[in-house]
């Protein structure tokens, strides 16, 4: 399988993502400029990544303008045909604006741009992004966002719970899901979700910043290993 990483004007985690996929995970990666209009060459086995950053300067709302970038029509079609799409941080915001994931990301309740390590409790192994995780162990993965407060209405929340669509919740170092461990005021501590079809994933934390020993943290790597369905041999 191969990866496509979409580059919007204002994306700034695209290179980190390409580096991790190519040099750490050993995968084939192609960057896709947002003005491209087709995902020709990508098949249902592949995965398209919407990286973090500040697409279009976060003007109007985060992700609102990027959602109408030329490539997005092809990304939506790719997802609707069962292809995997993974949005991180700004990529998550774009997926929500595009309607590929339910809900929206609002301004953090503390009005701060939060840039720090947080802990995530994986909620399910039933997704291609989390199949290898230990649901009893907290993952330490950094966040860097000002608009990360996940919100959806009560009916949507019920659907998310019923369909096992909540992938990660913010927790403390011991895996306890508490209000103080919630860095941005997200409803039910939600940090990441998937769609009903379980082929579109979104999360605010940055696993690509936690995938190498050189950076002192490899907790995020298990998500990429899950995506390629292969556990790397080296620690």
């Amino acid at each position, binding site marked *: 399988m191969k990866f496509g990483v979409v580059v919007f004007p204002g994306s700034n985690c695209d290179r980190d993502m390409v580096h991790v996929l190519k040099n750490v995970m050993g995968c084939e990666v192609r960057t896709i400029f947002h003005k491209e209009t087709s995902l020709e060459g990508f098949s249902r086995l592949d995965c398209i990544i919407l990286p973090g950053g500040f697409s279009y300067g976060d003007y109007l709302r985060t992700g*609102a303008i990027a959602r109408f970038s030329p490539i997005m029509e092809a990304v939506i079609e790719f997802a609707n045909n069962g292809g995997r799409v993974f949005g991180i941080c700004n990529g998550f915001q774009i997926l929500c604006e595009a309607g590929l994931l339910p809900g*929206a990301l609002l301004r953090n*309740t*503390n*009005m701060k741009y939060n840039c720090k390590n947080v802990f995530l409790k994986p909620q399910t192994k039933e997704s291609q992004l989390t199949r290898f995780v230990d649901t009893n162990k907290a993952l330490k993965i950094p966040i860097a966002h000002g608009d990360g407060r996940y919100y*959806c*209405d009560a009916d949507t929340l019920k659907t998310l719970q019923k369909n096992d669509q909540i992938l990660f919740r913010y927790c403390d170092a011991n895996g306890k899901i508490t209000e103080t461990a919630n860095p941005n*005021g997200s409803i039910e501590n939600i940090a990441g979700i998937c769609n009903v079809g379980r082929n579109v994933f979104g999360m605010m934390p940055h696993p690509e910043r936690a995938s190498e020993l050189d950076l002192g943290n490899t907790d995020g790597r298990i998500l990429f290993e899950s995506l390629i369905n292969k556990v790397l041999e080296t620690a």
Partner: protein
Amino acid sequence: MNFRAEIDIMPHKELLDPQGKAVAHGLHNLSFDGVQDVRVGRHISIKLSAKDKSEATQQVEDACKKLLANAIMEGYSFELIEE
């Protein structure tokens, strides 16, 4: 015909508005003791041409629904002025 739409976009009432809270706090610091609540939204002014007022209204409605407001988190209202 030329029109100007003055659009107000406000966060839904049931949602916490941290920006509004911070502004209210600032006003209290300046001794505006009567201030009870502040909510911060967005104002957008659009100039447009259309064959009549109803077509212009429809255009602005569509723009609000498609891009300018996200119904999950905010509501909109607008005034259309003929120019």
